[in-house]
């Protein structure tokens, strides 16, 4: 009975303690990454290279030669920032499904963490902060590859990195919150098949939304990925000034999804762990 003393001691978790434990949860993710990064780093380079060669140069050469006039920049410049955001979004979706499911159900890492002074919020923070970090790493590598390919429309290409991170959070927060309720990968497959793949194809990544019939164009506003794609493209082509309000709306919508999703995630982590 050494430290158990008066009623005033240790009433609330001191802020310092909360920050320290949130950091410890985040550190765990870094440790995991440092032990396994060799497996993923190649993919982080290879994927953008493959896409830019196939779609940007291969398909792009074809599109540019056809001279349809639907886009007024080389196709590869049109495609590259959108591809970056789409790729980061897919990666973060993956990071918000398997590791979350594993933490609760498979290796039950979260339960082990909760047996320590860590709060459910600290555990959730560790996960989402890592997803954001990983998204930033992937976006930075992708951006480097774009620049190396000479596929950057303007120095504004750098802005696609934070847009990638924001889009990652807008997806990962809600998906992680939802995955806390799942027991197996059924939902994961559904999310991928009916959510991520259609989004990847129809969010203006490969062709401008304006190519869709006018009656269905508004749907793009409902597609969270489109906001990231359109914003990243405008920033990298230097065309933000064409429709500044639309760009501001993109930021607000993405930030709104991210904040609401992360709050939901924190609450769900608490609900799942405190049973």
């Amino acid at each position, binding site marked *: *009975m050494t*430290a*158990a003393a008066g009623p005033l001691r240790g009433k609330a*978790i001191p802020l310092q303690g909360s920050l*320290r*434990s949130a950091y410890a949860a985040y550190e765990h993710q870094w440790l995991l990454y440092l032990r396994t990064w060799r497996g993923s780093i190649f993919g982080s380079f290879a994927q953008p290279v493959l896409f830019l060669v196939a779609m940007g140069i291969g398909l792009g050469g074809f599109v540019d030669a056809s001279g349809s006039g639907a886009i007024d920049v080389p196709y590869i410049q049109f495609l590259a920032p959108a591809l970056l955001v789409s790729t980061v979004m897919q990666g973060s979706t993956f990071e918000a499904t398997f590791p979350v499911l594993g933490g609760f159900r498979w290796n*039950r890492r979260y339960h*082990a963490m909760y047996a320590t*002074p860590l709060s459910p919020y600290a555990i959730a923070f560790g996960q989402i902060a890592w997803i954001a970090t990983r998204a930033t790493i992937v976006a930075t590598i992708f951006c480097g590859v774009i620049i190396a390919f000479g596929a950057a429309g303007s120095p504004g290409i750098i802005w696609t990195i934070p847009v990638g991170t924001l889009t990652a959070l807008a997806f990962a927060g809600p998906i992680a919150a939802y995955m806390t309720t799942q027991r197996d990968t059924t939902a994961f497959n559904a999310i991928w098949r009916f959510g991520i793949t259609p989004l990847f194809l129809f969010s203006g990544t490969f062709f401008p939304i304006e190519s869709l019939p006018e009656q269905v164009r508004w749907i793009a506003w409902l597609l969270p990925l489109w906001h990231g794609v359109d914003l990243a493209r405008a920033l990298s082509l230097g065309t933000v000034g064409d429709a500044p309000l639309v760009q501001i709306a993109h930021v607000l919508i993405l930030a709104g999804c991210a904040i609401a999703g992360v709050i939901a995630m924190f609450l769900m982590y608490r609900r799942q762990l405190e049973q």
Partner: protein
Amino acid sequence: MAEQTAPTPLIHARGLTKRFGELTAVDGIDFDVAPGESFGFLGPNGAGKTSAMRMVACVSPVTAGTLRILDLDPVTDGPRIRGRLGVVPQQDTLDTELSVKDNLVIYGRYFGLSRKEAARRGDELLEFAQLTERAHDKVEPLSGGMKRRLTIARALINEPSILLLDEPTTGLDPQARHLLWERLYRLKQRGVTLVLTTHYMDEAEQLCDRLVVMDKARIVAEGSPRQLIEEYSTREVTELRFPVGVQETLDGQLEGLGERVELLPDRVLVYSDDGEAAAAAAHQRGLTPETVLVRRSSLEDVFLRLTGRSLVE
């Protein structure tokens, strides 16, 4: 002020209750655990042992009743209490992608240890868990017994005041179990307070100074293994096994062989203080069991007496 009072219990529970919707998992149980004691919850699966344990571990809010741990309240001081507990869950929760040593170090970080201190304690604990040679191996290929020992080592990284073990040896082979028991016995000798759940009577007998028997969310008996056996069973038990179909025809012929007779599906248990005499009496009555086994009473018999069922079904 050096009064000769009993030390404040490390765990103090009165009317402790846990409900999940309609289901009452723990129904108003009372118990205390004193410093240095090793205390057990014995009961079949579904008796409420794990739910009780989770409340003590401050990861599951109490539905009703009083619970104080280390003289603190789990509602307001959960993180502080958890900082002084070591938890060995029923299912291993190791990070299989990390090395053995990394698992210990990162866990130490959760308790606010510096990397250096976590690594120092990690090395000591690997020694204790006899895993030093595996320090840099991944966790995945370790045997079940090794993973269990690593989980226990991890639970000790914060030098806990109480070590909670939920079914520590379930699923291990006999050799691994004995090694684990031996390690836990060492901890006990060092003065670590152990609280464990088990549905193995031999484990409870090996490790517990005192235990409660749980059945259907309640405590049905409490005491040391010896006290429980004295109170609820006889000194010896004679097990009679008859050929298939014979046992059902013995109506009335078994009465009075011992203090009490228990009919199990596959054998007859005769409770008496002299097992050999009971066996002889059976032979005198002309009974011809296939096998006769005289043994000392165990907690299994206590449990059978209290609930009419065996522990492991």
